[in-house]
């Protein structure tokens, strides 16, 4: 079992448990308790989303670094090499979306998908909430696909 499936299994255990309590609280008219468990579910979503995104982030960093080192060391024509020389010098400080643009075409489906998730990652990272509907089952599928499909 890969890390995404392992995380998904633990996530759904907790999510099902919280949902059952949320539903029971609603049935009994305990609206404060219902809201409390709804909030717990939201935080659970955020935690697992963040954990999964960091796995993808790590993969993107490794792949883009490999690409930069390959180009820096193998290219000989200065017209092509000059951009890679700059990237090589800055390789520790390249923003994530620039790394994504080295691996996927800007504006195309995979790039746009990573941008959408990255925006949500930043919101969560700064203590805010998701600003679009995040469905962990879909996140697991997307993260797994991106993680294994993105190649040099």
């Amino acid at each position, binding site marked *: 079992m890969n890390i995404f499936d392992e995380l998904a299994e633990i996530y759904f255990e907790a*999510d099902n448990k919280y949902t059952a309590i949320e*539903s029971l609280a609603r*049935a009994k008219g305990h609206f404060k308790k219902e809201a409390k468990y709804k909030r717990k579910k939201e935080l659970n979503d955020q935690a697992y989303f963040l954990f999964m995104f960091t796995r993808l982030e790590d993969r993107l960093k490794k792949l883009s670094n490999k690409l930069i080192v390959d180009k820096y060391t193998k290219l000989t024509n200065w017209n092509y090499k000059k951009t890679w020389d700059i990237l090589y010098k800055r390789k520790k400080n390249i923003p994530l979306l620039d790394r994504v643009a080295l691996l996927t075409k800007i504006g195309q489906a995979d790039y746009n998908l990573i941008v959408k998730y990255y925006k949500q990652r930043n919101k969560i990272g700064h203590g805010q909430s998701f600003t679009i*509907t995040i*469905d962990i*089952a879909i996140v697991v599928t997307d993260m797994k696909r991106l993680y294994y499909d993105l190649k040099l």
Partner: protein
Amino acid sequence: MIKFDHNKLKKTTTSVDKPVLHINKIILITTDKEWASRLFGASLSVKFACIDKNKKETKTSLDHLSLGTLITPYHKQPVLELNQQFSFVDKFNFTKDDECTQWKTTIELNNLSLEKNESLEVSIIDSSHIQKRIKDWKKRVADLYKETKKWLGDVPQYNIKIGQPTPMYEELMQSFNIQPTETDTADIFKENKILISFKPKGLWMIGANGRIDIISQAGNYILVDIAEQFQEPQWHIYTATDRRTGKPFTKKELLNLISSFQ
């Protein structure tokens, strides 16, 4: 929607509100049946300008959007999905926003000469589009509850009641300064006991046109509208853990679902 053709490569609009522009996608329309590969090296420039009471531009901001791509004859109607948002970025703050009586937005197509039989459609999301989608979402949710009520009509021990509304304030609403709103929840009762609850989760989601969570003490399900925007809804029901094997949400599915919860 803005349409550029060989005569028109620039579009200007004015607004009282500070503009936010979301370019969704761009479609190249051509009547050519057979055409060769073509390097499509165009760009769009988006300029926002603050107009003061003397009708003068007092501050501007300019952004570029590269549309560079290779279009082959296999692309019958090339569509570039862009999803880029633009807003005024103030560099110097010399002029306060309340000194702007109007805002001017200019979108210009650069580096592309269109033939007579070609045009470029730029699909734009603006504030009124967002308002329309919120209205449509609330209607689809209300219609779903009405339909569910009809389905339960034949089974006298069940009924559906509208519950406490849930807040709605999603990213696009925030970007376009649209006020937060609420969507109705609903509960299905069996003899005054809640069996399941419908809780709208959100409208804007990746790959679908809105989601409603179905929660119960025995498990949770998800309803997803897989139809395109402003089309007749196609609600599909999924288990919480699996998005691959959804089924259309029908009377039979609903009755199966509530009977499994008893």
